[in-house]
């Protein structure tokens, strides 16, 4: 096994162990909160998901920019952007899911058109579109440039969507997420568990992007090789017929 593969396996195993530890601490060791009771345990998984979604989109943008800039244009940047966006969509989905599961007992509804929720949903759609664009067959450079532009537009749009939706929903009513009674004092073992959660899921994200990136790089190589083989077979057939 190469050093790279070993390192990747190390990251994967560390992520697994740390997530297991976070779950154990979050579910059994930390105390229930005063107001929210056991529901506070959602705190250890929901914010890390959201953080990784943003991290992933940030990395997609950086990689897309590096791809668009001709001096640093390499197939690798495009593949990293794609891998990171896929993980980003995955974690955005989990953010919405865990948020919804939190929202049901906390506010009594699965979904509300609150500023934060709405902008997260739009964010999810933005990058879903990006992934859909990548699925369409076209030449490699074409796909690279086009999806990099789409990623750039999407990223610039994130604060704009956030701002507009925030205005839309908070101009006349107070946002329900920031309801003071739900604010939790984070201290002691809770803080450590939360921190561990952030690190653990970030490790999982690194492993995901790494694996996805390697796979798509190999797939690109595979496509090249298959073309070569087809040409060779064609040539040998012609030789025989001659």
């Amino acid at each position, binding site marked *: 096994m190469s050093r790279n593969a070993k390192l990747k396996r190390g990251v994967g195993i560390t992520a697994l162990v740390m997530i297991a530890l976070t779950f154990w601490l979050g579910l059994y060791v930390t105390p229930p909160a005063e107001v929210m009771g056991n529901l506070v*345990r959602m705190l250890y998984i929901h914010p890390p998901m959201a953080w990784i979604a943003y991290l992933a989109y940030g990395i997609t943008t950086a990689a897309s920019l590096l791809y668009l800039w001709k001096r640093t244009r390499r197939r690798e940047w495009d593949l990293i952007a794609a891998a990171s966006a896929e993980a980003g969509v995955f974690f955005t989905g989990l953010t919405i899911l865990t948020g919804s599961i939190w929202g049901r007992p906390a506010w009594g509804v699965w979904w509300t058109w609150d500023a934060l929720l709405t902008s997260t949903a739009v964010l999810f759609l933005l990058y879903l579109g990006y992934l859909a664009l990548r699925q369409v067959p076209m030449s490699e450079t074409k796909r690279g440039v086009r999806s990099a532009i789409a990623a750039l537009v999407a990223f610039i749009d994130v604060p704009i969507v956030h701002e507009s939706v925030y205005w839309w929903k908070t101009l006349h009513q107070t946002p329900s997420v920031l309801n003071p009674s739900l604010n939790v004092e984070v201290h002691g073992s809770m803080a450590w568990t939360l921190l561990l959660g952030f690190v653990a899921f970030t490790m999982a994200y690194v492993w995901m992007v790494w694996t996805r990136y390697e*796979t798509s790089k190999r797939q690109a190589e595979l496509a090249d090789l298959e073309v070569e*083989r087809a040409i060779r077979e064609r040539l040998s057939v012609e030789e025989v017929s001659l």
Partner: protein
Amino acid sequence: MNPYVEAGYTAVSCSLGGYAIFLGVRSRQVRLRLAQLRASAQRADGSLEDA
């Protein structure tokens, strides 16, 4: 334990696990296929040299 908390943790572990397995299986498939193709390409090169 709160049923919502249980549902949340289950959902997260199932999705993470599912995605990780998907990635792992896919990666393995592509790796094997690539090794196979490379081997056959080498064989083809070898037979050309022999001829």
